Structures are given as structure tokens and as C-alpha cells.
């Protein structure tokens, strides 16, 4: 009786709905387990189906919008429109002229991978990206190599010669559509023997170092850079740590500048001092400046004046 009096009215007036239906003491059976398995499989199947539909739809949309993969040209229309974009000097006309099949063949028959490889074999082209946009558009995007120096090579005729361009990564290629002034401003690379590779030439080792040096000089001493005529790799095989490795630059104001193939900043600083000194002293040019030694710059005047001793740098060398 005492227990009864402790019960609240809600407990006394309980309905069957107050009985738990999820107390975990369920009585399972084989049909129930079979149904549960069936439901789980249904859920897995449903999820898989939805995923498949989504992936298929996405794939179809992707296929219709772009066709990047080789041979993935999804229409029979010829490429009536060629959209051409580059960060260099090559043009759409050059492309169409070089690859005549693009404007005649159907998009379906275009082999984009072969086209890409053919473009990148040009040397001037660093990366080629080709896409088809249905129904009839071919989008060509190029990234070109930037010319660092020129090099003179033997021509096809006897005793003739041709000029080639050397990119910052050492690739030797026939520069096309560069403005004449751009090419004339490039110094010639000398003091090395080019190695043949296929129809062209093997990459020149150490050109990245040379390109760094030229870039720095161009930014710090643009007037002096314009007088550069040659870059000699006679004493530089591409290994900047090799003993006595030097890069020699021949120019109009200074007949020969000698750089060590590393730590260009301090060398340029010393060179700047020397050039400033020469300009202030109204010199008509210097014969040789060697900044390849640490904290020192050796200067040789062009005319027979009293010899300038080894000039001391800021650090007091």
C-alpha cells in the first residue's frame, strides 16, 4: 500500500503507449533477420545506385563540356574555331599554318595528345594545353620558353651559320616570331660545344645559373646589360661548385667581366661600384673586371694609364 501511495497520477494512469518499444529486448526470428538483411542490402544498393547516377551524370556533363583526354574529341564537326592563347609571341596564324590538319579534320578525328606532343617538340613551346569545346571549337593554350641568350650554330649549307635561341632552362631552339630588337639584344653564348640530340641540340647545362645572372644584371645595371655581347661558358660546365668555375661576359663598356657562378648579389654590388667609379672618372671603358673573388674586384683599365690596384669593396678589401 505504501508503494502505491508513492506512485504519481501519471504512473497510475499509464496507457499501453507508455510501454517502451525500443528497450533492446526484442525477440528476433529468422524472418526478421532476413528482412533486416534485405533492408540493409536495399539501403546499400540504393546508395550505390544514387552514387552511380551522380557519377554518370557528372561524367556525361564533363564529357560534353571538355574533352581533355587523348582522342576524346566528341563530335564530328571540324574545328571551325581555334581559340589561341599564349604568354609569348607565337600566334594563332602560326599555329594554323604549322598544323594544317586542325582546320580540315573533324574534331572527332583530332588526336589531341599527338598535337600536344608535336607542339611541345617545337622547343619554343614549354607546355601546350588543348581542349575541345563542342560543337566545333578547339582551345589552344601555350606557355612559351623565354629566350635568355643566342647561340650561333653551323648552317645547312657549307660555311653558313644560323642563329638559335637558348632558353633559361638550356633548351636550344629556333626562335620564331620574336621581334628583331628582342633577338638583337640577346648576347651570344660562346665557349662551349653543342651536343646533337635528334634533329636538334641537347640542353645546355648551367643555363639556369646564367639566366639568373643575366636577369640580375639587367635589373641592377640595365645600361651595362645593353652592352653585353657574349657570354662565355668556357670555364663553366654547369656545376657552380666546381673549382675555378667562372662565367665570362664580353661587352662594349667592359671588355670582359668575370663572375663566379654562385652568389651573384655581392658580385653585382662590386661590379656596380666599379662601373660607377669608371663613369665618375669619365673612363671610356674598362678592359676587365673580375668580381669572382670574395669581397674583391679586380679591375683592368682599357687604356695605358697608371694601373689601378685591386679595388677595395665596401667591406674594405
Amino acid at each position, binding site marked *: 500500500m505504501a508503494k502505491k501511495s508513492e506512485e504519481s497520477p501519471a504512473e*497510475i*494512469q499509464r496507457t499501453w503507449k507508455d510501454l517502451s518499444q525500443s528497450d533492446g*529486448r526484442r*525477440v528476433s526470428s529468422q524472418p*526478421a533477420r532476413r528482412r533486416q538483411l534485405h533492408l540493409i542490402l536495399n539501403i546499400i544498393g540504393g546508395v550505390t545506385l544514387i552514387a552511380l547516377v551522380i557519377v554518370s551524370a557528372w561524367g556525361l556533363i564533363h564529357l560534353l563540356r571538355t574533352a581533355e583526354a587523348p582522342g576524346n574529341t566528341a563530335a564530328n564537326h571540324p574545328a571551325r574555331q581555334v581559340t589561341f592563347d599564349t604568354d609569348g609571341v607565337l600566334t594563332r596564324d602560326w599555329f594554323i599554318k604549322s598544323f594544317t590538319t586542325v582546320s580540315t579534320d573533324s574534331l572527332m578525328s583530332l588526336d589531341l595528345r599527338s598535337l600536344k606532343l608535336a607542339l611541345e617538340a617545337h622547343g619554343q613551346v614549354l607546355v601546350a594545353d588543348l581542349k575541345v569545346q563542342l560543337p566545333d571549337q578547339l582551345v589552344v593554350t601555350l606557355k612559351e620558353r623565354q629566350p635568355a641568350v643566342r647561340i650561333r650554330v653551323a648552317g645547312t649549307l657549307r660555311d653558313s651559320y644560323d642563329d638559335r635561341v637558348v632558353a633559361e632552362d638550356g633548351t636550344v631552339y629556333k626562335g620564331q616570331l620574336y621581334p628583331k630588337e628582342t633577338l638583337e639584344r640577346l648576347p651570344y653564348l660562346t665557349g662551349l660545344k653543342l651536343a646533337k640530340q635528334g634533329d636538334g641540340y641537347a640542353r645546355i647545362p648551367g643555363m639556369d645559373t646564367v639566366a639568373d645572372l643575366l636577369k640580375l644584371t639587367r635589373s641592377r645595371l640595365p645600361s651595362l646589360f645593353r652592352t653585353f655581347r657574349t657570354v662565355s661558358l668556357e670555364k663553366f660546365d654547369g656545376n657552380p661548385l666546381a673549382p675555378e668555375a667562372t662565367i665570362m661576359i664580353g661587352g662594349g663598356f667592359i671588355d670582359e667581366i668575370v663572375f663566379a657562378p654562385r652568389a651573384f648579389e655581392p658580385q653585382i654590388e662590386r661590379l656596380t661600384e666599379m662601373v660607377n667609379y669608371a663613369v665618375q672618372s669619365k673612363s671610356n671603358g674598362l678592359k676587365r673586371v673580375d668580381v669572382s673573388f670574395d669581397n674583391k674586384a679586380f679591375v683592368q683599365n682599357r687604356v695605358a694609364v697608371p694601373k689601378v690596384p685591386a679595388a677595395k669593396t665596401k667591406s674594405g678589401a
Partner: protein
Amino acid sequence: MANIMAQSKIIAAVEMGSSKIVVLVGEAIEGRTVNILGMGEHPTNGIKKGEITDLKTASACTHTALLKAERSAGTTIEGVYLAATGSHLEGFSNRGIANVSASDNFVTRADITRAVENAKSKALPPGRVYVHHIRSGFTLDGRPVDDPTTMAGETLETSYWHVHGDEMKISNALRVINGFSLNVDDMILSSIASGRMVCTEEDRKAGVLVIDIGAGTTDYALYKNGNAIRTGVIAVGGDHLTNDLSLGLRINAKSAESIKLRYGKAEIDKDDKNDNVLLLGDLSIGDRPIPRLAIYKILHARIDELLIIIKNKLGSMASPQHVPAGVVLTGGTARLPNIVDAAERIIGLPARLGELDSAVNNRDLRQHEYATALGLLYYGAHAQRPRDERREAGILSKLTTFLKFN
């Protein structure tokens, strides 16, 4: 958008009977229509007299029927409406009274709520839980009223018929359904479910007694003014007739069942005295003649006893004045010949066999043993209707709400 699209739910009506488990699967569409999609049946084991005696076996049988129904419907059941039966179910009537609080004596919702809470406030003994609270209607100053809101009066009274059952037995029934990873959305008395299907709205308003004689139990519901005012479950059914025959004639249960189905009759005629029937009917070894009168006497005695119990339980309420629409018999055992005559003789009311709602088109389902499951589906469909719509139960609602059975 939600209003435009039809809201539907796949529901199952489950009747765990003593002889077989019946599952009907239907799609309830906005509470207006039920499309029956499939059904499953399985012979019962582990349930006697409507109560679970072996939980594991009963679960296996019920789950098999549920699985068959799901496969037949080709869909997954989302909720279950379960028939409640068993002699543990009892009922009592309780009144709730509230004095009208408004100074102008017009009844407000608060008055109705107080009267209803008062009627429902009776505590149950420990171990018992309510299954149904069935409202019998309102009276205002002693006058019966359908809807007392905005009517003037001093004392509002309502009466409820409360049905309660044994907590453990109900919990076991829930666990059987829960074991199939389903929840019971609602539990409805078997007699109320079958009563909805075998008699008309007019019968229920005038007053009718529905007796559903199953294999293990007999469920009854007395309707007046459209509401069930008395219900009950008696642990006697068709199986007892078979058992009586088996004991009385000294034959096995299978033969007794066969005799009951072939020759059974609830009333004795004068012509039956000297007639014999064959036990097996094929003159094979073991076949023997059995006096027809003996069969009838056994069945007659048990049916009389059953009907007398019901008459006694209802007392003066089972009178022609209270129950002008008479007695409607349903359930598998209602197919016993002459049982209608027996009911008329014992209860003293006009009796007839129930006919299923005309909306049930499927001939296979127009059988007495499916009345309860069909009634459960009806209530399940009704429960899916939006709450606002249910409140407006008027002529329009009656016109638009119908059952559509394929």
C-alpha cells in the same frame, strides 16, 4: 507543395489470432483511401486464447506472416496497427462531471477538458495499463448532446468506457512486433475493429451488439449512439468446440475439427435424432459412424454457454430497447450453421451474420476472418488524416472518406 502532393504511408494490420496470424498491408493515402497492397497468413503457434504463451514461437509465426505480406505487397511496412484481444482485457465505465464555469453558462473548451480529465482520472491497479478510452457522449444538464461547445447549461457530464489490460501481456505483444524492427502505431480492440467492418453507421447509432467468435476468444462490442459503450473478451472460441468434440466423441483433434467443419451445427432439429455420420467419410480402416445428435448436442451446449456468458455480462443492456439493430455475428466460428438462431434464442435479440463493408471489393477478403484486420486498416487510414481534417468530421468528411479495396 506538401498540400499538393498526396501523403501516403504503408501500414500493416496485424491480428495475432489463436488459429492464424493475418497481416494486411495497405497504403493509406491522406486518410481518405486505403489501397490493399498485399496480405500474409501463417498458422499460429505459441498463442492460446488470444494470449502469448511462447514468445519466441509466436514471434517466428508473426514475423513469417509479416514477411509474406511485405513480399506480397512488394514494399516495406512503415507502421503496424495491432489487434488487442485476450481475456486479460477488461473494461469499466466512468463518468466525469464539470460545472460550467462561464457566467453566461455557455460551455467552453476548458469545461469539456475538465469533464474529460475527470472521467479519465481513475487509477488502475499496478500492472495494468489502459488500452482504450472510448467516449460514450456528453450530457448537458442530463440532456444528451453531440457537441456541447457553445451550448448553455450548468452541468456537463461525459462518460467513458475504459479498456485496460495486463501490462506484461501487452508488452509481450509489442515485443513480437518490435522484433521485426517495426513499431506499433496503435492498438485497437479486435471487437471494435471488426465491428467497424460488419455493421453500418446506422446500426451503431441505433444500438447493435457485435460478437466476433474467433478460434481462441470471443470478442464483443455493444454500440449505442455510434460509440462502443461496452466491450469484452471471453476466452472461449471455435477451438473449444473442437476440443469438446474431441473429448466427447473420443476422437483426435484433427478429426474433431473435420467433423465440426463438415457436420457442425449450433441448434438441434427434430430430424437429427436417428442419423449417423462417418468419422472419416471414406470407409477406410478406423472410419466409424458417429451419431449426428451427439455432435450437435456438444456444439449446442458450448455455443449456448458462450452466448449466455455474453448475455449475463451485458445484463439489461442486451434488451431490444437498447439494441434495436440486434446482434451481428462475425469471426470464423460465425460460419457454424444455425448459430444465428442460437444467438436469437439465447440473447433474445434479432441476429444476423455480418456482411463486410461494401467498399471491400476483393472476394477473397470478404470473409469473416478478415473483418478484424480490415477494420484495423480502416482505423490506420483514419489516423493518417491531418489533425485539422479529423476535427471537421461532418457530412463532407463522411462523403469523402471511404475505403477503396482492390
